[in-house]
């Protein structure tokens, strides 16, 4: 497909999907790439950019009214690196406001629809990026992931989503949400494409002090991490704590089949991550504290509109974070959250003494209906139960499409928080994608990508959102 083909596709489909907040045809159509430089790995490939990464040529809104019309005076490192590699910056995609959300419904500019079913969410916060790739409106997209915001929408949209190790990719130019958790990564149709993009964007740039090592640290290194090609089979652990009540039947069925397929290339064993049940609580203490701090910069002095224009979820998290770090409460809440975080990380360290990678579902459910969880913030937070731990521990993790859910089945009563909620029996004619997640030890990004690529071949996910047609009928 040429750039013009992709542009035509956006024109035809995005009216219904709303993956893009900004798609300026002059900008996307007019980018030239020099073919006479050596680093032209992504020459001519259209890559959409999540709208919380600053660009010079077009506005960056972070999905918020506060930054409506804001044009950044500098460009994110990942954007510069994509340019240098010849990629075409292909529009800015929709997101939950300031990346806070799991459905893209918190965008101040309207939600994005899931290309597989327009009445459902694409996931979040990188919902625009995932929907754009799934609908073939871009070759790939960049997303950001603080608690699952690359992997969960990738899972809901049937595409690949890779969150690198914390520190693998510079966050310079990423509008900060939670600085000890945020990471930028690619959303693509294949693991190979994700690796190509990772190769271009990874590595320290002198602007982000949390970035480690050499640009290609770990690449080609002889480690004992197996990729499934060597004589010793890779060993993959499935955390027993992840297979409990919250996991719905449709996802569990696909997950079990994915585990059977995994057994062809790896020894699959059970592992324990004993402090798993604290992950969501720990995250929803640490992250809001960092959010409250990071969003203090929106004070109408250097840029932006008044703070009353923050959306509800942003306000909630700022209040929660301010409270949890305030005098008299910080020890009980924020400090305990950090202690829980350390225990969670140590759980993984212990597990990786026995296994090379960990496999888990990406999300407890398939893509839910638009509006289904908006009245219940806590229920929405549980969408990230399997993705949050990798952010807390700084580990690389990748979401791979594994299968389709035959139909949404009521799970009887399921416990969320302290209240039991009735799961309605829903028969949906549409099949929805289910993702599985591989998590590696810190800094094992290259090995994880290689192993994921082998697994991808066996999963052999070939479905597309439009029922086998190249384009939808809408």
């Amino acid at each position, binding site marked *: 497909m040429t750039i013009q083909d992709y542009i035509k596709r956006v024109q035809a489909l995005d009216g219904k999907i709303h993956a893009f907040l900004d798609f300026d045809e002059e900008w996307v159509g007019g980018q030239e790439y020099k073919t006479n430089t050596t680093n032209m790995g992504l020459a001519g490939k259209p890559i959409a950019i999540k709208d919380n990464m600053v660009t010079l040529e077009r506005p960056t809104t972070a999905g918020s009214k506060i930054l409506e019309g804001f044009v950044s005076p500098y460009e994110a490192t990942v954007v510069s690196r994509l340019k240098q590699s010849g990629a075409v910056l292909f529009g800015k995609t929709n997101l939950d406001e300031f990346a806070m959300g799991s459905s893209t419904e918190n965008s101040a500019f309207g939600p994005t629809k899931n290309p597989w079913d327009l009445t459902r969410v694409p996931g979040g916060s990188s919902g625009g990026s995932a929907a754009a790739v799934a609908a073939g409106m871009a070759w790939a997209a960049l997303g950001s992931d603080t608690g699952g915001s690359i992997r969960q929408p990738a899972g809901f949209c049937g595409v690949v989503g890779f969150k690198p*190790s914390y520190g693998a990719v510079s966050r310079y130019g990423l509008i900060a949400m939670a600085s000890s958790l945020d990471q930028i990564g690619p959303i693509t149709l294949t693991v190979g494409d994700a690796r190509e993009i990772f190769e271009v964007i990874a590595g320290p740039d002198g602007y982000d002090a949390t970035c480690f090592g050499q640009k290609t640290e770990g690449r080609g290194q002889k480690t004992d991490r197996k990729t499934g090609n060597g004589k010793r089979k890779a060993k993959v652990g499935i955390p027993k704590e992840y297979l409990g009540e919250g996991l719905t039947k449709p996802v569990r069925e696909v997950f079990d089949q994915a585990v059977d397929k995994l057994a062809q290339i790896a020894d699959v064993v059970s592992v324990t991550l004993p402090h798993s049940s604290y992950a969501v609580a720990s995250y929803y203490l640490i992250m809001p504290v960092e959010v409250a701090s990071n969003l203090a910069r929106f004070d109408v002095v250097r840029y932006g509109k008044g703070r009353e224009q*923050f959306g509800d979820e942003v306000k909630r998290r700022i209040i929660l974070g301010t409270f949890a770090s305030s005098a008299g409460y910080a020890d*009980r*809440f924020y400090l305990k959250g950090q202690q829980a975080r350390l225990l969670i990380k140590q759980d993984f360290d212990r597990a990786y003494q026995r296994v090379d990678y960990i496999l888990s579902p990406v999300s407890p459910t398939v893509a839910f209906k638009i509006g289904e969880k908006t009245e219940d913030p806590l229920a929405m937070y549980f969408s990230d139960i399997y993705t949050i731990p990798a952010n807390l521990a700084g580990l690389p993790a990748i979401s791979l499409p594994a299968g389709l859910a035959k139909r949404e089945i009521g799970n009887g009563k399921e416990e969320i928080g302290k209240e039991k909620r009735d799961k309605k029996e829903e028969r949906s004619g549409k099949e929805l994608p289910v993702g599985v997640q591989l998590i590696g030890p810190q800094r094992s990004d290259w090995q994880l990508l290689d192993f994921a690529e082998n697994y991808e071949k066996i999963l052999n996910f070939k479905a597309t959102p439009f029922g086998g047609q190249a384009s939808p009928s809408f």
Partner: protein
Amino acid sequence: MARDSNGKQGMTKELIKRVAQLAKLDLSEQEKTRFGKQLAQILEYVKKVGEVDKTNRADRQELINGLVDNVRADEARQCLGQEQALKNAPSTNGSYFKVKAILE
């Protein structure tokens, strides 16, 4: 935290007002009520981290990715120019950002 009429620990209007003030968020009465209820529910859940019995200070270095003292030489480098820095400001005066007076 006070308990509301349901016996659940809630964020009282007073507490929310105080926290919102700290966070420089001007909340409406309706927002204070709505957020109060939602935050009470969230706090009720997250307080389970209190069960964690680890008493030593969480090692921040270990938490991130093992990097220690990742600093660079204190050398002047190219940075954002004045014009660029002021370009999005709602209010400027010459080469200054203009803000509300803090002192009389």
